[in-house]
């Protein structure tokens, strides 16, 4: 592992304004640390890769203890 850590590109704020969860159509919470968009309603976390949110249900992480 390299010691240099390049910070992940930030999510463009213009995207956050318009995005909802594709599964529940509920709001998404931006988890900056994990670089994920979290849908509490659907119990899914969508990855953000290099600043690009991947809003595919097939690629989302299921949250532990989700409904």
């Amino acid at each position, binding site marked *: 592992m390299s010691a240099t850590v390049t910070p992940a590109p930030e999510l*463009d704020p*213009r995207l956050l304004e*318009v995005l909802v969860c594709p599964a529940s159509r509920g709001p998404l919470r931006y988890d900056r640390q994990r670089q994920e968009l979290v849908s509490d309603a659907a119990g899914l976390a969508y990855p953000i890769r290099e600043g*690009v949110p991947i809003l*595919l249900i097939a690629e989302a992480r299921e949250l532990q203890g989700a409904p």
Partner: protein
Amino acid sequence: MSVTPFLFDARKVRLHRARAAKGFADAAFLHARAAEDCADRLEEINRPFPRALAYGGGPALLGALTRRALRDKLGVVLVADSCAALAPGPASLVFEQEAAPLAAGSCNLVVSCLALHWANDLPGALVQSRLALAIEGLFLGVVFGAATLLELREALLAAEAEMGVGASLRIAPFADCQDMAGLLQRAGFAQPVADSHILTVRYAQPLALLRDLQTMGESAAFTQNPRPLTRKVLARALQIYTERFSDHDGRVRASFELITATGWAL
């Protein structure tokens, strides 16, 4: 026989697009053409679109929508695709049009460029676009029409029939121009209009067409794989293609019907 819920496999489509991404700019001449056409039409519409979503056209669509003449008309252009590598920044996202993660009324313009033909639920995808649009928002979509690849379709069917192997679905069914306007209406769009034109591309040989389809990420992506195309049947199909669809100079024709559909959200 078991019931097949979905005709197309979205995962395969994404895979094909991801593989094609690197050479997409060179291969996707149809997308570039459709993108330029979209931009031309937007130039004719005299109203601003503060937030636009561009889907499916790769870098060509972003380039067309950010051309100088549209700079004052289009505000933010969000670029989306089912494949991240085909959604160039600065503000890009990945989603499927049938499950659009866009807040209601959040966009003023949705442009969908040659991507809806892989939707299992085309009416549903159109409804999603309409929901994403604010009042007086515009949907502008370019889809492949029924005349697309009719030569290849005919050649494959003829070869399969001739060799007694039975016909397989190898080329996706494409939309009908008149149906598109109806679908837009059903999805709740006002003033739905669809027009189409056929683009004839000429190749040195039919195999070059197949290669082109692959390099633009348009390999078949059915949920159930068709019967494998044997070398013999393929060879015969290519032969039939050349026999039936050659010009005097020996080059073969391939038709692509591009349907442009527009509708307004009220």
